[in-house]
């Protein structure tokens, strides 16, 4: 659409932006969490006398103090205790919470809580847990038939948090008949999202109400769980989410909020709970995965079957992992024509930090094996890895999964864009070598090079349930209320752009409030790259509703019927005034849609070539014109009879219209990388990164490119550096010194960011989501590129220098 500066930039460069960690309430107390020093043990005694007597301590809370409160949470499997009940299941699990006047006093007293354990065998990896008779959860917490979305959790106690599968055709028979079968097994590490603002929550329980300020990505999901746990009506629970210091999925669903709320309930004071990086790593990580892919090809290198096994290490509690596993299954086989498929997935409970959502949501784990397998297949088949993909890619409109939305992207065109950028880089390098006249530079001695492409398609957008409210004031300016949380993606900017366009006002005339469940309307989640698409549609619908309400007010003031008022050029006209410019006049009960059609030609001019509206967008009064008619401000002031009042529009998205078929869109990941490998050290340098943002329409191109580079960089982190390492019961690297994330000097030497805008999405103006896509294929692309450089295919990430060095040794054998 247009470049628009971020709405939050001034606040953020001046230090004025308010985050949850900055929040204070009158008479606030501070909590420190006593965490388990065992991975798996029965709690035999908790001695808190010394802590309770320590200076400044208000109370020390354990599970037994929680009375009638719902002690467990978990939106899919309610297996997660606020404070450990009877036993602990991972090192770092909250056992008690100390509430004191100051953070220092709370931290000091937490050291004085003495916990006795009766040790159980610690099952710290998925293979061990699945093979063991020792149960991490000795009971099922599910009511019969209980499910979340289409995920019906496994009500078993065999260390399985979830099991699922997807199949069509006869994969086994097709593999047996295939000309070539290629098998790939990869290990995806345990990774930590590291949002720089670590989890925190401030809670104020009062009789009949609960107010929480937290880092929650999904405030309405948190509200639902808190209401259940505290036996309160939804309306009595207020979850306020200011700016979030990074989310990336890691702040999805409920984290510290129940702990803060229980502490406030116990102490009778507002209580703040924060985490350091170590505690944050104990709070949530991403699912580790062992994935095996077997692909059968016919003599023409066309896929005849894929058989895939996914095993997640889900940690001590299910959190969102059952849904992540289900998505991982859907995202594991790639956007290819696959006549026979079988994917089986299991998420294992282990005695490690609980896993949950992280950017990509199961796609990076599965694509590592799936896309590396395509490269290995190309090698075996003796054809180019780009060509093997080209031969098998689905076309726009093809079915990926029966019953779901057909593919809404042109992947061959995306692939061409990647290859062209990679080729350009190679040509530029050759030209530079020629120009320098240095013949030796052509062969960097001691350096190996490799390049690779990778593609993914994710069923994204989550549930299309969204509500937006636009309040137009007496001067025609607008307050937009949505519950989407702003965690850096720029949703307040993009949604303001959509509202400004729909209402024909400058973006400066649109204010966007922060999410606060007391004031902002219902939103399913802020995740799955959904906001611009799904919430954007809700904003468009709210603006259409606002125009209808303005038409009604204008008609009422003039003593005519609503059918006599049309919207044209951002103004309201009585049909007689515009009959010479608007054929058909768009009158009728659903007249907005009709006049949208009536003004089609003009609208297309105003929008510019190649842009179109879909669904509610057709209702948008987008023609720019001036002169006759009334401005919305004039209509409002006339109707209220004063320079006062406001008119409100509400827009709702549900599983209907543009979002009737799920997913709301397929989020495409399309990347290429060129790497160099230092033969002496095994160090990998990313020479060139190419991302194609296949977003249908970029409402704000700078924001989309920002999402793509940020997501791809997190993918590089997983590919090259990031890994939580367990040694026995304990995480050995719970800090940012030993858990290494990408730094500035790790950035690729060249970055090409392409936006593919083909208007093929269901969102506003043909938009589709961005945010996860550019991460999903990156670990696979890097693994394949390093494999090509070294001559041995990697099986495990991250590709640290020691790992690559041992690949180099294998290559020489």
């Amino acid at each position, binding site marked *: 659409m247009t470049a628009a500066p*971020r709405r939050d930039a001034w606040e953020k460069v*001046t230090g004025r932006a308010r985050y949850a960690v900055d929040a204070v309430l009158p008479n606030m107390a501070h909590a420190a969490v006593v965490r388990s020093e065992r991975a798996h043990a029965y709690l035999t005694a908790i001695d808190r006398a010394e802590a309770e007597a320590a200076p400044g301590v208000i109370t020390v809370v354990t599970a037994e103090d929680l009375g009638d409160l719902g002690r467990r949470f978990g939106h899919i499997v309610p297996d997660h205790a606020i404070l450990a009940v009877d036993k602990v299941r991972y090192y770092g699990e909250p056992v008690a919470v100390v509430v004191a006047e100051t953070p220092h006093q709370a931290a000091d007293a937490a050291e004085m809580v003495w916990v006795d354990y009766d040790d159980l065998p610690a099952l710290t990896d998925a293979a061990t847990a699945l093979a063991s008779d020792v149960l991490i959860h000795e009971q099922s917490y599910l009511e019969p038939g209980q499910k979340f979305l289409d995920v019906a959790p496994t009500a078993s106690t065999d260390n399985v948090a979830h099991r699922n599968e997807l199949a069509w055709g006869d994969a086994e028979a097709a593999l047996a008949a295939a000309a070539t079968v290629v098998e790939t097994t990869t290990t995806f590490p345990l990774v930590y999202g590291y949002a720089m*603002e670590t989890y925190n929550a401030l809670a104020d329980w009062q009789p009949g109400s609960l107010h929480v300020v937290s880092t929650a990505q999904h405030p309405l999901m948190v509200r639902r769980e808190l209401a259940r746990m505290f036996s309160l009506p939804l309306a009595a629970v207020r979850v306020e989410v200011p700016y979030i210091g990074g989310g990336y999925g890691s702040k999805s669903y409920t984290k510290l909020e129940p702990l803060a709320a229980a502490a406030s309930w116990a102490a009778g004071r507002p209580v703040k709970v924060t985490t350091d990086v170590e505690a944050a790593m104990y709070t949530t990580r991403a699912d580790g995965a062992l994935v095996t892919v077997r692909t059968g090809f016919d003599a023409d290198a066309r896929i005849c079957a894929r058989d895939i096994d996914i095993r997640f290490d889900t940690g001590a509690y299910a959190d969102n992992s059952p849904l992540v596993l289900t998505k991982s299954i859907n995202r594991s086989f790639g956007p290819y024509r696959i006549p026979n498929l079988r994917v089986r997935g299991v998420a294992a409970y282990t005695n490690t930090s609980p896993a949950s959502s992280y950017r990509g949501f199961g796609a990076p784990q599965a694509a590592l094996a799936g896309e590396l397998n395509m490269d290995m297949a190309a090698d075996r088949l003796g054809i180019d890895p780009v060509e093997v993909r080209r031969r098998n890619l689905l076309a726009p409109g093809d079915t990926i999964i029966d019953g779901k939305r057909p593919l809404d992207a042109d992947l061959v065109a995306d692939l061409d864009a990647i290859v062209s950028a990679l080729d350009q880089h190679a040509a530029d390098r050759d030209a530079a070598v020629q120009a320098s006249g240095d013949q030796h530079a052509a062969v960097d001695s001691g350096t190996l090079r490799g390049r690779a492409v990778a593609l993914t398609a994710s069923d994204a957008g989550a549930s299309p349930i969204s509500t937006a409210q636009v309040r137009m004031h007496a001067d025609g300016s607008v307050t937009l209320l949505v519950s989407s949380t702003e965690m*850096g993606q720029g949703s307040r900017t993009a949604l303001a752009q959509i509202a400004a366009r729909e209402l024909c006002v400058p973006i400066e005339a649109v204010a966007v409030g922060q999410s606060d469940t007391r004031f902002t309307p219902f939103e399913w989640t802020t995740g799955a790259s959904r906001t611009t698409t799904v919430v954007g549609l809700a904003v468009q619908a709210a603006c259409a509703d606002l125009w209808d309400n303005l038409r009604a007010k204008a008609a009422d003031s003039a003593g005519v019927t609503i059918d006599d008022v049309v919207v044209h050029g951002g103004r309201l006209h009585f049909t007689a005034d515009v009959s010479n410019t608007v054929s058909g006049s768009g009158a009728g009960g659903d007249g907005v849609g009709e006049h949208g059609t009536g003004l089609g030609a003009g609208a297309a001019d105003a929008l510019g070539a190649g842009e179109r509206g879909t669904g509610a967008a057709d209702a948008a009064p987008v023609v720019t014109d001036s002169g006759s008619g009334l401005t919305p401000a004039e209509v409002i002031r006339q109707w209220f009879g004063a320079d006062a009042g406001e008119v409100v529009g509400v827009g709702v998205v549900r599983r209907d219209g543009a979002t009737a078929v799920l997913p709301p869109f397929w989020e495409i990941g399309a990347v290429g990388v060129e790497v160099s490998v230092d033969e002496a050290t095994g160090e990998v340098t990313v020479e060139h990164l190419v991302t194609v943002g296949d977003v249908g329409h970029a409402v704000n191109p700078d924001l989309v490119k*920002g999402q793509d580079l940020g997501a791809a*960089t997190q993918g590089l982190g997983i590919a090259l550096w990031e890994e939580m390492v367990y040694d026995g019961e304990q995480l050995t690297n719970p800090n940012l010194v030993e858990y290494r994330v990408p730094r500035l000097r790790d950035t690729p030497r060249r970055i090409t960011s392409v936006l593919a805008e083909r208007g093929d999405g269901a969102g506003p103006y043909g938009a589709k989501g961005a945010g996860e896509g550019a991460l999903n294929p990156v670990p696979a692309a890097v693994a394949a590129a390093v494999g090509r450089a070294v001559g041995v295919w990697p099986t495990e990430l991250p590709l640290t220098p020691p790992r690559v060095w041992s690949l180099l040794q294998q290559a020489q054998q």
Partner: protein
Amino acid sequence: MTGSQAPTSTVVRCRINGRDVEMLVPVRLTVAELLRDRLGLTGTKVSCEMQVCGVCTVLVDGNPVSSCATLACDLDGTEVLTVEGLARGRNLHPVQEAFMAANALQCGFCTPGFIMMAVALLDARPDADQAEVREWMDGNLCRCTGYAPIETAVTVAASRMNDSSLEDDQ
């Protein structure tokens, strides 16, 4: 050890963003805690608490310092600059302007630390080249942007500050 009563609080006198501050602070209080919890200057953030992320960077007598790992009592007699003290009234510092113009922020949590480190760099090395920018900024982490826009912002700010200092000379 209860017998030996070392002082648990001490008076610190310093100047923070041009404002004279005199406070009795616990000796264990960090600069970040003083700024955020006692003075309401919440622009300075804390993340890794191990001096690797740079989020908490402030300038003490012009030098970049990790405020999460520096004791408030050590500020006695110093001059402290935080992100809140950079702008002149409504006029932003060129580094702040450059971060806005280059889209060099997303969630914004790391932004104050990056900006303070960039200010320190450009004060110390007004002619900093790209290698120096990358070296100085390598001590700050960002999880959102992928760094390229931040590098651009600092480079642009450097050239703009050099241009305006040329104008001042004329």
